[in-house]
Structure formats: C-alpha cells, structure tokens
C-alpha cells in the first residue's frame, strides 16, 4: 500500500527528464480526446434500442407491444425508440439513470423479469416507477418530440380538443392522461393503495366490544364456523356490522342488510332500493333459511321489484374493524379528487343518484390508475354521498359545467 502511494506520488510529482514537455502535453491531449470520444460512444451504444432489446424483448414482449402502436409506425415516419422515452436527455440525469440501471443488470442476472409471466407480475412496480418519473419531470421526454406550444389544437380530432386544450392551459404532464401509449397497461389487480396500510394498522389496534357497530376497512371472507373453514361469502369494505362475540382469531358479526327478492338474492345492499353492494353470499347459502332471517319486504316503486330486509350472522377473521367510517371516506375522497380531476373537474358527489354512479364510474375508472380495491371504495363513497343522501341542493359541480369551464 505504502509502495503504491509512493509510486503514484512519484508519478505526479517527479518531473520527467527525457520526454519533452510538448510531447507530454500533446500525448495527454490526444489521450483525452480519445477517451472522451470513447466514453460518448459507449454512452450511445448503451442508448441504442438494440441494446435495450437485448434484454427486454425475447423474454417479455415489450417490443412486440410497442410495434402495435403509433410510435413504431406512422404516416410521418418518425420512430420513438426506447431511450427517447425512457432515458433522460441531459447529462446528469442520464448518468444517474445509467447507474440506476445497475439494478436492471442485477435483475437480469437474477431473472426478475425473465419470463413473460414474471414480467406481468412485476410490471406494475416498474410502471409505477416510470409514472413517478414522468410526473416529476412533466413528461419531458415526450415533449422533446411533441409539446403544447407547437400543437394546432384545431387540427386535432374533436374528441381530443377539449382535453388537450385544458391540459395545455395547465401545462400538465402527458403521462397523467396518456398511460399505456407504448405498451399494454399493467393489470391493476395487485396494486395496493398505501393509504390503506395505516387504516389496517389502526384497525388492528381497535378495541372491539360485543354489541357495538363497526365498519370494515378491507373486504373479508365470511365463514359459517368459528374455525373459519367453511366459506359462505364475503363482506365489502366500509360495510357496517354488529359484533356479537370474539373468540381467538375469529369474530362473529351480524349483518343487517337489504336484498332484491329475485334469483338467489346473493348480493346484499346497505339500504332499501339503493344498489350499494355490502355483502355477497355464496349461492347455496343465500336461500338457506337457517342462516338468513327475512325481517320484512317492501316493493320498490321505481323498479317494481320486491326488496327484503335480511339479517344473518357469520364468522370472519378479526382485526379489520374500526369504529368510524370517516377515515375510510377520507381516503376515498382524496383518491377521487386526485384521480378524477385529471381531465375535468370532478363532479359533485351529489350530482348523481346512488344507482346512476356505478355505470358512470365504470365508464371512467379505466382512464385512471386507481387500483381495484381503491376503486371499490371510491365507488361506495360516491354512492354513499350521492343525491339520495345529500340534503343540500346540488348542481354546482355538474360535469357539464366542469367541461364547459375547462374550455378556454
């Protein structure tokens, strides 16, 4: 070690006796030019599509997916290559991204996305990283090719104009709306909303006493027996239940809900005449008089259907109840406000009635990146705050109004 230090110190401090200064400087200059050029060539080589594809195609079909989109083949003949969208263009961020790719090299060696199946499972995580990146930099990479200031909105398809004009007015990040432009979207099934983790941990600390009413923070399976072996159905998030007893890990709860007297009557709703799904029983159990107690019947004048007030008790795993529904609605509201205000102002909850919301919501939720569990909560939130429950006059938050004002 000492010797090495010594050698390096000598190398730099001891003047050369035989080689002329000019030769040294010229040699150094040439070496500098060559190595900088070599460095850039290497950077470029690792920024070639062929390089990316050497890992990313054979196994996981990202390229075939891209080939089906406009960015592969279009009337203008401009191609977007992987690094055009994925690698930052300025020096610092590019170098940082290249070093970040050490994770990719590692992943390749370990085979995290070695097969199409593994890739599909892992895809959401990767996509979320990219979404976070695009939303932080305002989709800078997209805008290297097409930016608002160069767009002629009048030439766009009519369906694009309103959304694109208001996006330009807000200088919004493209990928907020244009997810899945180049690849298939990941399945949102495995996605989790981290906000629920706090809720679940609060629920595990909730003291529960028999005879009181609580709300579910996550959907739960229902069982006929205390050992939780015989599944009879499931109960939805934010459903109100009465706790009857707690034994070990299991809890017996009572459901007091409504159902349509039609078919098996498997789906149970929280209120008369309103399609707010609260529990779903298995077919065989739904007509089991030993389990289900019909308290009353009433005809819904709107549909002519007979609704039954029903009661049943069942076992479920303990630890997912809280004593107030408000924290659940807070998460739902936040999710609704951020996800549904991307293209238009989010309509007032009370602008539609409970039975209209599911259809509207189903048509819109595909535009957002809300995961499935959160989507169910948001829908329930909207239904439970719809015009059927609202006492105030509605109309202010009408979506027609929102779209109108979005137009410049």
């Amino acid at each position, binding site marked *: 070690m000492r010797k090495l230090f010594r050698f390096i110190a000598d190398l730099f401090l001891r003047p*050369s*006796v035989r080689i002329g200064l000019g030769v040294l400087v010229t040699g150094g200059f040439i070496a500098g030019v060559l190595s900088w050029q070599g460095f850039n060539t290497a950077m470029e080589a690792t920024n070639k599509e062929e390089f990316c594809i050497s890992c990313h195609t054979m196994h996981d079909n990202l390229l075939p997916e891209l080939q089906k989109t406009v960015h592969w083949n279009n009337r203008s003949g401009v191609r977007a290559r992987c690094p055009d969208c994925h690698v930052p263009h300025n020096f610092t961020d590019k170098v940082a991204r290249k070093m970040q790719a050490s994770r990719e090299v590692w992943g390749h060696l370990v085979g995290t996305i070695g097969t199409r199946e593994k890739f599909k499972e892992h895809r959401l995580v990767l996509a979320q990283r990219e979404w976070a990146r695009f939303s932080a930099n305002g989709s800078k990479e997209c805008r290297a090719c097409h930016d608002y200031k160069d767009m002629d909105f009048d030439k766009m398809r009519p369906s694009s104009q309103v959304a694109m004009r208001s996006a330009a007015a807000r200088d919004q990040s493209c990928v907020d709306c244009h997810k899945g432009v180049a690849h298939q979207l990941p399945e949102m099934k495995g996605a989790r909303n981290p906000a629920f983790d706090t809720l679940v941990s609060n629920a595990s600390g909730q003291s529960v006493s028999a005879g009181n009413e609580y709300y579910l923070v996550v959907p739960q399976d229902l069982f006929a027996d205390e050992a939780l072996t015989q599944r009879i159905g499931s109960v939805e998030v934010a459903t109100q239940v009465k706790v009857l007893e707690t034994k070990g890990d299991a809890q017996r709860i009572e459901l007091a809900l409504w159902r349509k007297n039609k078919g098996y009557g498997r789906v149970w709703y929280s209120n008369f005449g309103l399609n707010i799904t609260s529990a779903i029983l298995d077919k065989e159990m739904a007509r089991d008089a030993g389990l289900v107690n019909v308290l009353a019947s009433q005809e819904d004048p709107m549909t002519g259907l007979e609704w039954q007030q029903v009661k049943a008790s069942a076992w479920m795993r303990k630890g997912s109840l809280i004593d107030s529904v408000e924290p659940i609605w807070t998460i739902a509201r936040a999710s609704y406000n951020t996800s549904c205000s991307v293209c238009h102002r989010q309509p007032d909850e009370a602008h539609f009635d409970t039975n209209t919301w599911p259809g509207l919501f189903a048509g819109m939720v595909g535009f957002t990146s809300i995961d499935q569990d959160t989507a169910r909560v948001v829908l329930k939130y909207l239904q439970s705050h719809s015009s059927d429950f609202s006492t105030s006059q509605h109309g202010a938050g009408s979506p027609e109004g929102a779209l109108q004002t979005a137009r410049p």
Partner: protein
Amino acid sequence: MKTQHSAAAVMSNEATGGSRSDWRNFLLLAFVGLPVVMVGAIAAYGFVVWFLQLAFFGPPS
C-alpha cells in the same frame, strides 16, 4: 542547491529505470489510468446523484 537537486533527480531516475520507464508510465497513465479514473468518477457521480434522488430529491424534474 541546484546541482544537488538535479543529482537527486538523476539518481532516482536511474533507480526506477530511466527514460524507458518514463515512457511506460506516461502511456499507462494517459491511455489507461486516467480514462479508468474518469469513467470511475462519472459512475460515482451518477451513483451519488441517484442515491440523492432516492433519499431526498425524488425523480429528476
């Protein structure tokens, strides 16, 4: 003073092998050593920026 200095230089030069070793050191330094250091430094810079992004700044804007 002056003679002493050059005498020392000549001596150590001889001790390490003369102008042949000067050439070898020069070429190794210019074409191997420093390029490696450059790549290393840029890589280190990249890692530092990445870790800062992970820890504090979030993705680049």
